[in-house]
C-alpha cells in the first residue's frame, strides 16, 4: 500500500512540476534544474516499479515450494506445495437433547448429552502414506476411537492397519456427521463397530466395484475393540459394493450401489457376546443373561443398497448376525441368529444433492441476505428380531423384548456444510416372547418408546 502511495505521490509531483513550467522560462539554469528534478522523479518511479517487479518475481519463484495453509469447512490443512505431504485437523461436536414422551414418568431418561466430541487428525506423507488419529471426548468416557495407518499403493489397492470401522454395516460406514438420522437404525446393533486389524481394499472395474477384505481381532455386535483381544480367534471380513452405472452420467440409475458384506470368526467368554441392543432412543431393549457366554462360531451376512438421485437418497440393509452361546461354561450350546433390516430415505427440500458424504448447502444461512441453507426431510422404517431360541435360557423373557420395530421421521437443517440442526422423532414398538409376562419387568418396555432427539452439530 505504501509503495503504491509513493508511486502516486511521485506521479502527482511530476504532473505538478510539469504544469508549473512557465510558458517562457526565465533562464536556462532554472530549466536545467527543473529537468534534473523531473529526471530524479522519473528515476524514483522506475525504482519503485522495479521493486514491485522483484517482489512479484520472488513470490512466483517461491510459490512452487511455499506450503499451503487452508482453513475452510473441511478443517485446517497444512500441505506442501506439491500436495505430497499434508496435515489436516478436523473436528466434530454433537450436542443432543433427548426427550421421551408417554413413558410412564417413572423412567429417568430425558437428558442433554454431549454425544460426540472429537479432534480428528489426519496426515499424508509422500502422497501414498496416510494416518488417522481420533480421540473421542464425548459420551461417558474418553477413548481412542480411530488410530490407523494406510498405504495407498494404487486406486485398486489400499492397505490399512490399526483401529478403524469394520466394513460390515452400510450405515455404520457412513460418517457420524452425515447419516439421515441422529442415531443409526437398530440394524447397526448387529454389526461390529471399530476393530483392530489389517484390511486391503480398492476400486476396480473402472471404479464401479469396491472390494474390501480384512482380518480383525473380532468384536461382538455393536461393540468396539478394547485393545485387549488376546486369543487365537480372528475374524475374516469381506465386502463387495457395486455401482454398475457409476460412469453413465445419463442413466437414472447412476447413483445406484448395492453389495454384500460378511464376517466370520469365533468368540468365547462373556465378552464375546453383545452387551445388548439399543433402540433409536439409545435405551437397551435386549441383553443376554449375565451368565450367558459366547462359545463358538460367529458369522454375519448383510446385503445392502444405496441409491442417490439428485435430492433423493435411499438406503437399505439387512443383517443376520449369528453367535453360538451357552447359558454357562458347561451349558448347552445353541446358535442364535438375530436379524434386522431397515429402509431409510431422505429428500433435500431445497434441491441440493443427497449424498452418502453429506449435503452441501448451495447457500449458507444468512438472515440478512435471506438465505437459509438446506433442509432435508427423512424417514425410516426398521425392525430387529431376536432368535426365539434365546428365551428363556440365554435371555430373560420377562425383562427383554424379542423384537423392536421402529419408525423415524426427521428434519435436518444444514446452515452450512459445517453447522447443522437435526430434529428426529422415533417411535419404537416392542414385541415379546410368548414366554414373557403380561407386563415387562423393564419399565421402558411397557409402552412404545417415543423419543424426540434434537442435535446441534459442528463438523469440519
Amino acid at each position, binding site marked *: 500500500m505504501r509503495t503504491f502511495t509513493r508511486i502516486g505521490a511521485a506521479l502527482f509531483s511530476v504532473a505538478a512540476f510539469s504544469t508549473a513550467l512557465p510558458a517562457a522560462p526565465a533562464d536556462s539554469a532554472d530549466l536545467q534544474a527543473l529537468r534534473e528534478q523531473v529526471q530524479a522523479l522519473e*528515476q524514483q518511479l522506475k*525504482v519503485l516499479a*522495479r*521493486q514491485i*517487479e*522483484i517482489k512479484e518475481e*520472488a513470490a512466483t519463484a517461491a510459490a512452487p*515450494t511455499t506450503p499451503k495453509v487452508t482453513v475452510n469447512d473441511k478443517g485446517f490443512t497444512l500441505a506442501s506445495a506439491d500436495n505430497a505431504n499434508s496435515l489436516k485437523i478436523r473436528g466434530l461436536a454433537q450436542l443432543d437433547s433427548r426427550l421421551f414422551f408417554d413413558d410412564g414418568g417413572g423412567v429417568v431418561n430425558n437428558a442433554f448429552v454431549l454425544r460426540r466430541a472429537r479432534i480428528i487428525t489426519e496426515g499424508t506423507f509422500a502422497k501414498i502414506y496416510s494416518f488417522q488419529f481420533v480421540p473421542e471426548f464425548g459420551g461417558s468416557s474418553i477413548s481412542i476411537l480411530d488410530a490407523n495407518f494406510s498405504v495407498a499403493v494404487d486406486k485398486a489397492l489400499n492397505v490399512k492397519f490399526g483401529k478403524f470401522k469394520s466394513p460390515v454395516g452400510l450405515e455404520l460406514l457412513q460418517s457420524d456427521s452425515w447419516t439421515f438420522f441422529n442415531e443409526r437404525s437398530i440394524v447397526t446393533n448387529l454389526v461390529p463397530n471399530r476393530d483392530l486389524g489389517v484390511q486391503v481394499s480398492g476400486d476396480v472395474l473402472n471404479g464401479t466395484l469396491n472390494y474390501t477384505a480384512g482380518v480383525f481381532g473380532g468384536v461382538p455386535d455393536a461393540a468396539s475393540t478394547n485393545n485387549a483381544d488376546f486369543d487365537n480367534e480372528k475374524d475374516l471380513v469381506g465386502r463387495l459394493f457395486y455401482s454398475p452405472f457409476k460412469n453413465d452420467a445419463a442413466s437414472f440409475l447412476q447413483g445406484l450401489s448395492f453389495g454384500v458384506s460378511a464376517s466370520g470368526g469365533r468368540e468365547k467368554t462373556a465378552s464375546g457376546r453383545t452387551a445388548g441392543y439399543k433402540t433409536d432412543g439409545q435405551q437397551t431393549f435386549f441383553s443376554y443373561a449375565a451368565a450367558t457366554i459366547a462359545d463358538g462360531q460367529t458369522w454375519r451376512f448383510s446385503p445392502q443398497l444405496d441409491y442417490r438421485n439428485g435430492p433423493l437418497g435411499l438406503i437399505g440393509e439387512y443383517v443376520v448376525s449369528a453367535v453360538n452361546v451357552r447359558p454357562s461354561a458347561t451349558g448347552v450350546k445353541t446358535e442364535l441368529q438375530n436379524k434386522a433390516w431397515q429402509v431409510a430415505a431422505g429428500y433435500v427440500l431445497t434441491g441440493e444433492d443427497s449424498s452418502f458424504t453429506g449435503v452441501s448447502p448451495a447457500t449458507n444461512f444468512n438472515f440478512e441476505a435471506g438465505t437459509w441453507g438446506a433442509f432435508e426431510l427423512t424417514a425410516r422404517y426398521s425392525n430387529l428380531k431376536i432368535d426365539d431360541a434365546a428365551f428363556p435360557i440365554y435371555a430373560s423373557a420377562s425383562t427383554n423384548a424379542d423384537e423392536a420395530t421402529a419408525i423415524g421421521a426427521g428434519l435436518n437443517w444444514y446452515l452450512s456444510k459445517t453447522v447443522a440442526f437435526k430434529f428426529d422423532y422415533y417411535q419404537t414398538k416392542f414385541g415379546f416372547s410368548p414366554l414373557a409376562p403380561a407386563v415387562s419387568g423393564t419399565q421402558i418396555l411397557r409402552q412404545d418408546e417415543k423419543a424426540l432427539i434434537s442435535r446441534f452439530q459442528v463438523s469440519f
Partner: protein
Amino acid sequence: MKLKSLLLTSLALALATGAAAKTIELLNVSYDPTRELYVDYNKVFAAYWKAKTGDDVTVKQSHGGSGKQARAVIDGLQADVVTLALAADVDALYANARLLPETWQKRLPNNSAPYTSTIVFLVRKGNPKGIKDWDDLVKPGVSVITPNPKTSGGARWNYLGAWGYALRKYGSEDAAKEFVGKLYKNVPVLDSGARGSTTTFVQREIGDVAISWENEAFLALKEFGADKFEIVVPSVSILAEPTVSVVDKVARKKGTEAVAKAYLEYLYSDEGQNVAARNFYRPRNAAVAAKYAGNFAKLDLFTIDEVFGGWTKAQKTHFADGGVFDQIYSK
C-alpha cells in the same frame, strides 16, 4: 570374401554401437549470468561426448543467484553438477547436506575454478556521473546498482571488491565498513542475482553505475549496444573465482557420475577454455588467455585469500545472519 567380411563386421559394429548408445540428461545448477556461457558450452560438450562415446547428452540449466541456487540444491533440486559463483556456496552443499565430499575443491585444477572474472563498473555512454573508481560510488547523488549479497554470489564479490579497495586506501576495517555502508546507502534496488541487476540497470534504466561481473558488463555492451554503455575499470578489484563440482550424491543416484565428471573436466580443455573466453570469462589456460588478452583489461587484482583469509572466514564475517552486511544495511 574379404570385402564381404569387412562389410559384415562394420554392420555388426554399427548395430552394436547404435544398440548401446544412451541418452543421458544432466542438470547443471549455475549462478545468474552464465546463461550464454553454458548454452555455448553445452553444445560443444555434447558434440565431444557423442564423438567419444556415442551417447547423447542433454544438459538442462538452472540459473539464479548463487546462494539461492545452493539452497535449492540443498533442499532437493537434483543437480548433477553445480557451477556456482564462489566456493562458499559449493561448501554449503557439504556443510548442510553432505552432497559432496569436504575435499571437493581439490578434485579439479585451479581449486575447481576453470575460469575467472573480476568486478568492473558498467556506466551509461558518456559516463555522465564521471565514475572512475570506487570512491565515486559513495558520492551523494550517485545511484549504484548491485545485487543482494544474501542471495547473489556476484553481489558478494562486489561487496568484497569495495571492501578490499577501502581497506587498502583507508587502512582500517572500520574505515572499510564505513565506506561500504555509504556505498549501500546509494543502492536503490537489490536484485536477487547479477542478471537481475543487469536488467535493472540496462533495461529498466535505473541507476548511474552498475557494479558488475566483467563478463556481464561485456555481454551488456554486446547485447544492448556499445553506443549505450561503457565499462569503467577500477584501479583495483578482486579476482573472482567461480567454482564447479559434481554433486556426488545426486550423480551417484542417477548413474551420471562419469558424464558429470567429464562435463566439468572438459571446461579445462582447449575448446572449453575458448568457449569461456568467447563469453568474456578469463581463461586459466595460458595459451587461450594470451589469444584473448586484448579483450580483458589489465588491473590490480587481489584474491579473497590475501585480503579476507578465504571464503569460509569472509562468509562468516560479512554475509552470515547478523554479519557485517546485515549491520550496515537497513531498509
